[in-house]
């Protein structure tokens, strides 16, 4: 007979919910606030000298779980701005159709070249819209507001400057 009390409890709980306000937000009719950390599509950015920041190290390509990033590495050559030798990417594509938006590419980037954006609308409706070519990724840099999270800030937060004694 121990089943009677849980049954009554269950009935009480569902009855109590009858009087509560539904938690549904009627989205297209009602404005919905987005969290400050909300972000969706990607952008490639330029560094402080106005050069393409990506050094073509392929770390993002290797870590990507759904293997949607393709980076074509170029030969190292001198940077026109600083005169130092550095790596470059010849091509960089990101296929959003299979992207799971795990942001690992952003987290692993040593030079903060790839970032996520706070786009106000979904990145696209057609299949072609969801394939981010290098040109589109660089267009996104200025076209869309940028999320504050970058690879180096995340790497820094995960590895404190000094080891803490256990």
């Amino acid at each position, binding site marked *: 007979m121990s089943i009677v009390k849980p049954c009554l409890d*269950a*009935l009480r709980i*569902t*009855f109590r*919910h*009858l009087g509560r306000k*539904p*938690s*549904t937000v009627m989205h297209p009719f009602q404005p919905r606030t987005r969290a400050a950390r909300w972000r969706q599509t990607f952008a490639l950015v330029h560094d402080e000298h106005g050069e393409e920041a990506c050094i073509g190290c392929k770390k993002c390509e290797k870590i990507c779980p759904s293997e949607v990033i393709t980076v074509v590495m170029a030969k190292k050559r001198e940077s026109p701005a600083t005169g130092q030798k550095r790596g470059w990417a010849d091509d960089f594509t990101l296929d959003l159709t299979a992207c799971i938006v795990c942001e690992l590419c952003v987290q692993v980037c040593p030079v903060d070249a790839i970032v996520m954006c706070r786009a106000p609308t979904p990145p696209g409706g057609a299949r072609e819209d969801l394939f981010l070519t290098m040109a589109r990724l660089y267009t996104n840099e200025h076209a869309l507001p940028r999320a504050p999270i970058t690879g180096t800030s995340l790497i820094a937060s995960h590895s404190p400057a000094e080891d803490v004694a256990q």
Partner: protein
Amino acid sequence: MPFPHDPILHALGLGVVLASALLGVTSYFIWFERRFAGRMQGRVGPKHVGWEGLLQPVADAFKLLLKEDIVPRAADKPLFHLAPLLAVFVALLGLAVVPLASGLVIADLDVGVLFFLAAGAMTVLPTWIAGWASNNKYALIGGMRAVAQSVAYGVPMVFGALVPVIFAGSMNLSEIVAAQAGGHWFLWWPPGPGFLAGGIFLMASLAEGNRIPFDIPEAESELVSGVSTEYTGMKFGMFYLAEYVHSLVGSALFVTLFLGGPDGPGPDAMALQVVWFALKTMAVATFILWIRWTFVRLRSDQLMTLCWKWLLPAGLVVLMVAAVWARFVPGGAA
């Protein structure tokens, strides 16, 4: 009498009017259930088609009518087409003996309770026909489950319904209603047996109608959609409708047997009686919804355990207590 004195014409006219009214009520009952369930789950439910979603049943009916009617190549076609029609017919059948007010009954049978129980037991027929004729393993398993369940739960349902019959000394539903006049409803008078019998009857009638938490013939998480797996469009819609009609007619019989039928305060006018009857039926139907949206589905063996090991012995004991009460307590039986 609102209809001609010829009994057949009277029954036919009243039958058509009541069946149409019931079908209309059922479609809005489905809307009500969806809003009700929505609130219980912190959702809103349908509210965009028409004012507060009131045109949703119409939209649903149009959607179902416009869908492609698929008949599996290997189906037993005559039976496949027959099952949904029979489902609605059998579900409506029970309405024939339920008195909505004194004198307002399609067929005032002396074996009304027996007729209703027989009609209720027949719901297994369209379900099994659909399960067999679909030629689909899930439908077949669903059909077999429905048979096992209906055969089992028919027995405690009879015991539950027999208690008011003993107290009223009649199987005529009008006389059962008359015996409860003045608020002596069998659910609480005599105290004890009527209440238990009502509980047993309600549970068993939920199980007969294959409603949650006894919906193992449909069990969508294990059997796709059970017996209605192969049905599309309006044929599926008819099964859906039949389930709700059965639930409403079952509530109406519960009201008649245990809640005094059209008995209620106020002058003895037919219109008021119908209102009382409708209000009570909706209250019972809402209680069934509350149960439905609270509990999870029972496993097959738990279902059988509940029936054969709990409801059936409990029904027998309640029946015996009722019989003793009716025989030995002065004024215990009408």
